[in-house]
């Protein structure tokens, strides 16, 4: 019996490891290929490169239309930070109202918020574009950042509402008896206790803004404001041909570093966030 379990576990480990290697092989290959000379990327499929060069990184870093990748990274980072700050402020405020405060029309507005959760972005994108264009915002980061300050990511409002509702109500009540205002309760009780959910919100906001392409394609219309994902697209020609594979893979590899760092340093929040609310990845 004991040996049977042991063998079963061993087989499971082997299966999981083999499958896992297959899963991440493309990414490993990409990282390694980015260090291969351009003419060997096609011919050399092994993980151990026959020649190593950083030429791809040098030529890729030059960027597009005279703007370097350094600028693209800075742009993306700026947008991500703006988006995170916006979501943290606006979504937490909305979630506190929905999750804790009693007010006329609460169920109605909560229902409306839940409906917007399911709404495909495309039904609002054309008028939003027309609107932002009228404001003169096309070609700036504002169309990406401003909606975050207006709690437009209903996903996070929902996540935070769920979390805030799970906090013991006695704490608020005790604070109110002690003379705290609803604002005091918000800042001194809800925000500190909701930290895990806030980290999850910040994490996914950062990642989704980092990886977003559709909105960047629409609004970041000239090279000085390009994001990393928008800039990576310039490696792929209009007919789909790629002229400089080495540089494309090198910059693609660099673009994966921030998500990687966040993922491995904050793994716990990832798993909790996904498991409790089913955040799409």
């Amino acid at each position: 019996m004991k040996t049977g379990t042991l063998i079963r576990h061993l087989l499971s480990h082997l299966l999981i490891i083999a499958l896992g290697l297959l899963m991440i092989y493309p990414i490993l290959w990409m990282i390694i290929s980015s260090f291969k000379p351009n003419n060997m990327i096609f011919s050399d499929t092994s993980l151990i490169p026959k020649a190593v060069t950083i030429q791809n990184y040098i030529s890729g870093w030059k960027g597009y239309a005279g703007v370097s990748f350094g600028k693209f990274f800075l742009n993306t980072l700026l947008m991500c930070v703006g988006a995170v700050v916006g979501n943290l402020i606006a979504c937490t405020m909305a979630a506190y109202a929905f999750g804790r405060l009693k007010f006329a029309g609460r169920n109605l507005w909560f229902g409306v918020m839940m409906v917007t959760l399911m709404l495909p972005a495309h039904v609002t994108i054309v008028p939003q574009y027309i609107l932002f264009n009228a404001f003169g915002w096309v070609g700036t980061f504002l169309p990406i950042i401003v909606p975050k300050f207006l709690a437009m990511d209903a996903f996070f409002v929902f996540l935070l509402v769920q979390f805030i509702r799970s906090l013991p109500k006695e704490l608020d009540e005790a604070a109110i008896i002690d003379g705290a205002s609803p604002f005091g309760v918000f800042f001194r009780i809800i925000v500190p206790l909701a930290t895990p959910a806030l980290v999850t919100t910040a994490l996914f906001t950062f990642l989704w803004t980092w990886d977003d392409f559709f909105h960047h394609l629409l609004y970041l219309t000239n090279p000085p404001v390009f994001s990393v994902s928008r800039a990576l697209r310039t490696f792929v020609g209009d007919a789909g041909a790629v002229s400089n594979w080495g540089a494309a893979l090198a910059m693609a590899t660099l673009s994966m570093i921030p998500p990687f760092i966040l993922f491995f340093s904050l793994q716990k929040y990832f798993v909790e966030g996904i498991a409790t609310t089913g955040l799409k990845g």
Partner: protein
Amino acid sequence: MRRQQTGIVTFIRRNAVAYIFLTPWFLGFFVLTLYPMLYSLWLGFTDYDFTQPDSTQWIGLGNYLKMFGPIWGLSQFTTSTGEVMRVDPYYLKSLSVTFTYVFASVPLKLGFALAVAMLMNQKLRWVPFYRAVYYIPTLLGGSVAVAVLWRKLFERDGLVNSFLETLGFTDLPGWITNPKYAIWTLVLLSVWQFGSSMIIFLAGLKQIPQEYYEAASVDGASKARQFFAITIPLLSPVILFNLVMQMISAFQVFTQAYIIGGGSGGVLNSTLFYTLHLYIQGWTYHEMGYASAMAWVLLLIIGVFTVIVFRTSDMWVSYGTGE
């Protein structure tokens, strides 16, 4: 008297506080959601062109006829304004591409995610580490970087073909450039990103009491029987949730299709996804009235499918505790 007044004041104050906290959301909802929705509904009945908004005309169901006209063999028609409009020869293609993708990728992805989750739901060491590794494709999968990588992998002389050649296959196609296979590379890309479904399944599996399986084993039920009699019914709410979420996002896939097709629908429009077609119509051709109409049809399609899934879920989802 005074007591009543304080009551009213408190009432107003209580509501005011909540509405202060909701101000950003309200502003966003009215300005960036409700108004745009109604506006795009209206645009859908016009020939709004972004470059010449002043000549916008109401064309009734013209945009909708432009989409679905080919079903009745129409190639052009006259709108109420007397304007002759050509039907969109690619719309139905984009619809079929998207449906193929949704119906293939969602079940495959969920099946794979469940299989891996069950494999991980054993008392094994290092499961958190394995789970992290399996999540990596999902972490990066939606990015342009991975879409660029995918192009490289599935080219005629890409990594996948090199692998297959070492296994003895010859005469391999360029998967991306062959209209028969191109969409399947995207289905595979979607299945590869099974990570979040897997984590949700894993959390669901952990909720199932181990005693059920032990009792079933004592009664002599096979593993397969246990899977269908215990795992599936008890996991069904989680399956429903994953199904709905994955379906909704599969209908809207854009980035991967855009990059793999190089900004177009690929060879013979074989990867002309719905949202890609919408983007091309709206932003390449500036036909934003038509793009808006397309967006509303997409909303209806997603809505109808979501309702269908929920309606049929009565038949296979059990919310009982299993007692």
